[in-house]
């Protein structure tokens, strides 16, 4: 078995037992990157030299019997909007070209500085996380490792592709309306979006700050639980992070799920959902039943309004969050300095934001404007409350809710690039989770007739990451397809 076929937690054991060195593992990742990066384009910037130096240092410390942190030098791929000190962090936008943050994000501090993961590079994404396909990157698209004519999903497409292809062992992503779960689903890997407030957003460049949440993309559920244990908890620098006990998520995975009640919302199997996807997901639900879980029907009646609500809110917030990119303090400023300061600001933004980002800023500015604010933004907040209440209501009767993660499997590169509305609709099963602020995980549950992976979404109640990880782990073991490495072919 090649090193890249092992799970993260298995590699930790190998390093602990001195079967392999940190450096060996790191080098094998870079070999895999050499082989596949030309076809995939998962990464936008590498930190190879620094990573190698750190690997050598960790090996030396290990040899001397020093503690090197619970992640034992596992190679980590970071989404290009989570700040790494002195490393280019550009949100895959021209406007932040060359920008190097002077500080580490909270999660980077925890994973890399405290627990000894090794940052190997930043991964490709839709510009400022705005997209479902990773086609909206200023560096060009990432390709799906299962079929390189298809998108990897987005916006954390680079992170998902790097995990699916074995380029990296652990990856970070961010999820505003499905940006972790969509690519994890399209690439057949595990994607976890924690409860809003479970993980500090300090150092996560904001797209829509009431929805954004940092999460993980990994090869298996155990690795997600392991990462979540490390990155969860109150951060005094993020007022919205919640001071709530962090469970030992890895310890709760083995529990039997025969007492669990699992809700299946009929609205999540509606018209827009591809039949093949529906069948694969339903088969997985029978597996859960086989594990002893009780399956019941639940309802999320306002699901049909979620995409409209989600886009109104995220665009409104984005129009304000992205206002700071004017070229004055950091990033790129237009070379043409004629006119007054507003001319230069406008030109800078016009030249350096991509079309999708500009579209969302326009729409968000519009929906917050006098006269439209009540009609759009306030109304969206009201519907958001209804959707939240739908979930609160549903969780009175069940422990978790399951559904397909995406209405389809990965589509072709360019298929929807000129049809943004169609692209937005792909978020219908993931964005309600962000509107409610609850946690959800996606695991692969099978393949369609094109051999493309299908994602299975498990949604939990507030701060019940332990519960959904438990169910996900049990189902993952039962299905036993998670070890498959994507071939990186057409």
């Amino acid at each position, binding site marked *: 078995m090649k090193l890249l076929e092992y799970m993260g937690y298995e590699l930790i054991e190998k390093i602990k037992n001195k079967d392999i060195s940190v450096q060996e593992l790191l080098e094998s990742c870079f070999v895999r990157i050499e082989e596949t990066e030309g076809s995939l384009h998962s990464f936008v910037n590498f930190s190879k030299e620094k990573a190698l130096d750190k690997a050598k240092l960790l090996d030396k410390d290990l040899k001397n019997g020093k503690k090197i942190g619970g992640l034992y030098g596992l190679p980590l791929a970071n989404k290009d909007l989570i700040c790494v000190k002195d490393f280019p962090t550009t949100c895959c936008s021209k406007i932040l070209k060359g920008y190097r943050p002077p500080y580490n994000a909270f999660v980077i501090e925890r994973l890399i500085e405290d627990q000894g993961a090794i940052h190997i590079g930043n991964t490709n994404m839709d510009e400022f996380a705005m997209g479902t396909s990773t086609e909206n990157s200023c560096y060009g698209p990432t390709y799906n490792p299962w079929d390189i004519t298809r998108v990897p999903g987005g916006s954390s497409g680079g992170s998902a592709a790097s995990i699916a292809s074995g380029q990296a062992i652990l990856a970070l992503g961010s999820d505003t309306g499905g940006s972790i779960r969509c690519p994890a689903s399209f690439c057949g890997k595990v994607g976890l979006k924690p409860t809003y407030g479970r993980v500090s957003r300090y150092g996560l460049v904001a797209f829509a700050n009431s929805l954004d949440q940092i999460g993980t993309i990994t090869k298996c559920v155990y690795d997600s639980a392991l990462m979540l244990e490390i990155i969860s908890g109150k951060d005094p620098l993020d007022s919205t992070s919640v001071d709530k006990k962090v469970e030992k998520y890895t310890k709760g995975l083995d529990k039997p799920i025969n007492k669990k009640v699992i809700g299946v919302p009929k609205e999540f199997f509606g018209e827009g959902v591809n039949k093949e996807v529906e069948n694969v997901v339903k088969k997985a639900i029978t597996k859960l039943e086989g594990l002893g879980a009780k399956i019941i029907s639940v309802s999320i009646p306002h699901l049909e309004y979620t995409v409209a609500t989600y886009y109104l809110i995220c665009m409104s917030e984005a129009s304000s969050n992205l206002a700071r990119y004017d070229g004055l*303090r950091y990033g790129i400023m237009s070379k043409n300095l004629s006119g007054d300061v507003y001319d230069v600001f406008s030109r800078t933004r016009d030249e350096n934001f991509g079309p999708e980002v500009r579209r969302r800023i326009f729409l968000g*500015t519009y929906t917050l404007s006098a006269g439209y604010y009540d009609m759009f933004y306030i109304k969206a907040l009201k519907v958001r409350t209804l959707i939240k209440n739908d979930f609160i209501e549903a969780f009175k009767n069940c422990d978790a809710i399951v559904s397909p993660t995406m209405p389809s499997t990965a589509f072709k590169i360019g298929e929807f690039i000129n049809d943004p509305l169609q692209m937005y609709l792909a978020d219908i099963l993931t964005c309600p989770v962000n509107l409610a602020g609850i946690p959800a995980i996606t695991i692969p549950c099978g393949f369609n007739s094109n051999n493309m992976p299908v994602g299975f979404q498990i949604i939990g109640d507030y701060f019940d990451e332990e519960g959904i990880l438990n169910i996900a782990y049990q189902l993952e073991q039962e299905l036993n397809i998670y070890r498959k490495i994507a071939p990186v072919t057409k």
Partner: protein
Amino acid sequence: MSIQNNDVIIGLEVHIQLTNLKTKLFCSCSNDYRGKDPNTYVCPVCIGLPGSLPVINKKAINFATRLAIALNCEINKSMYFFRKNYFYPDMSKNFQISQYNKAGGKAFADGGKITIKLNSHKKDVILNRIHLEEDPARLVHKGSIATSPYTLVDYNRSGVTLIEIVTEPVMSSPEEAREFLKQLKSIVQYSGISRLDLEGSVRVDANISIKGHERSEVKNINSFKEVERALRHEIVRQKNLLKRGKDLIQETRHWDDKRRITISLRTKEFEADYRYFPEEDLVPIEIDNRFIQQVKDDLPEMPNERSLRLRREYDLSEFDSDNLVLDKDIADFYEEGVNSDASFGPNEYKQYCNWLMNDILRVLNEQNKTIKDTKLHPHQIVDIIRYINEGKITTKIAKTMIEDMLEGFSISEILEIKGKKRISDENFLIKLGNEVIEENPNIVKDCRVNPKAKEALIGKIMQKTKGQADPHIARNIILKILEKKGIID
């Protein structure tokens, strides 16, 4: 058309920096940015770097609560911050985190009032609200804005806490506005939240209209003194337009304090739409009654109550006690003084008040100092009153002793010095002045930013001569040397 004075309608929006806070409103950078090298008091939060998040300064909530209580406002128990969106180079995020009482938002506190007295007539100036917000960065120009070849941005001020006090449009003359600001300044001082004598700690926007006509908003009035001036100018301008039969338009105007005129910035149709909406990076602020009570218990006596008490305890007139309490330092000084001599009665209380409010304050004003800048001790005035009342010196002689008293000399010491020769040899004093300047480079450096620092240098000459140097000559010498060195204008 005749326009009566009571046809004037004035409302004020007063922005006060909470200079007594240690750190900024949303990060842990120091608040004490004055005179520091540009862009050195900054961090990812106040410079608006991608990924940074604001965290509320709890002490700012405490300070705002103090002011709200002192102004009799109704404090909101639960509130959000809002984002005020507009592009400007002094805005690190191109939005300002503020509070908003529309669009589902609430101010920090609503209502409240300040009672003013003018020509023995009382009036309540009703407040609309007070709220917290962050200060933008400071734009630095060479000379005037219009002719400066560049604009520099200094983010040291970015994120410093401002509290905005908005009145209802209920004042009807510049004098009323002046009295209102005088009282507000006093209340702010008593609340212990800000030092309004610091440069740039106050900014006022004024709404002015003539009854039945459109209003104008005058921005950029950067001191309380300027407010009365700006209002007078604007009222005359509006009245003159009406006299000439012209219509007034709703517009925003800019106070040019150099030329002492207002200039039109924009008319109503170009008013910015700030797209206020909730700041989701901050959690709602919850204020309970216990907290309010605790803050209330910690608040000192406010000027109004104190004035009543002084009238009662020291038999002072309303006029005297009102004036005495205006500056907390003066009032504290007074009480310490009169309480230090048990033999004092109503006559001495009145005498002490006259000495302090007339004689001492006149000299302080001449020297552009506050009482805390001097070495004057409350007991010195007790002594001088005793000397006068015991017939040891005449009032006339006593008044010649004030400058020496401010240097900290006791009455007996001054009388002794008076007996000696005053040193008024200019050449000798210039030599001493140069020595003092050479020996105290830090104070000299401080003179660039702190107009009061030069007093310390003058004091050093007095020290060297055991108080015998002629203080006028000493002062002139220090000023001349500093000017020559280009340290002061």
